[in-house]
């Protein structure tokens, strides 16, 4: 049985606590890094991470890119949408197809 974690600044994450996800509020980069490393060792199947911290910890995220579990997924935090999520998908299309032929006109 796996659990779901949410990692990010407090204001962006505490709502998820009410839904039964495990919330890990962090305040700065080093702390986030430490917590994320801990989470990777435990039985979390999905780790949602706010886009702000996702961009800070991108090297750690990249090293887990090709492993099926856990899924580390950036979500927009309270600071607003950075369009990173859409860019990520476009990058995948580029990697697979060679150039972005599907979502080129969007954005």
């Amino acid at each position, binding site marked *: 049985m796996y659990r779901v974690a949410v990692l990010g600044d407090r204001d962006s994450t505490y709502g998820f606590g009410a839904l039964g996800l495990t919330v890990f509020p962090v305040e700065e980069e080093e702390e986030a890094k430490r917590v994320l490393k801990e989470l990777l060792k435990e039985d979390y199947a999905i780790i949602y991470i706010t886009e702000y911290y996702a961009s800070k910890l991108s090297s750690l995220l990249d090293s887990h890119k090709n492993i*099926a579990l856990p899924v580390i997924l950036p979500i927009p935090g309270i600071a607003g949408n950075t369009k990173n999520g859409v860019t990520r998908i476009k990058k995948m299309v580029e990697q697979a197809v060679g150039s972005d032929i599907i979502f080129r006109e969007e954005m």
Partner: protein
Amino acid sequence: MASTHVNPTRMELTKLKKKLSTARRGHKLLKDKRDELMRQFLILVKENMQLRKEVEEGILHANENFALARAMMQEEFLDAAMMVPKQEVYLEASTKNVMSVEIPNFEYHTKSSDLSDIYPYGYAFTSGDLDDAVHSLSVVLPKMLRLAECEKGCQLMAAEIEKTRRRVNALEHVLIPDMMEKIKYIMMKLDENERSTQIRLMKVKELVLKDALEERKRKE
């Protein structure tokens, strides 16, 4: 492009021919794999984009509601209200094999299935905005879980497609032409050898005949 030296022998030729047919079959298989992966990937990535947009909108909406709730309530009450969650989410994670790519497959269970029973607080000290906020987030949650599945699947498939495409190209443009070149080289060498042997034989025959004729002439 027979860059490396090959021995022009029949054995080498048979070996190369066998290798070539294997390479051709591998090439065809990998090409099929790539095409099928691409088809699945395109379906999945479209769903992914759709979900991503819906989830981001949903979270934005929920965050707006939370901001409202925070504005209406005192910090301590809010903290107290959210302190002990009532709802819990469990995931059943398995992997699904799509063309040799293992993509995650989630099934989730919640502790209480009643959507109106998720609020972890009594309603006395909280504002209605908080209820709205929690509700709007709970609506997004199933989509978020599906998104996690989808996006990881896309990512893994994209990597696999790239790898397969490289292999197909390497076979098609390097390995197979190279082998064909080598086979051609060996065949030409062997043919050349054969011709020279034939000529030598003819020459020898001529010489022997000439000798024999002279011998007969002398006897007569």
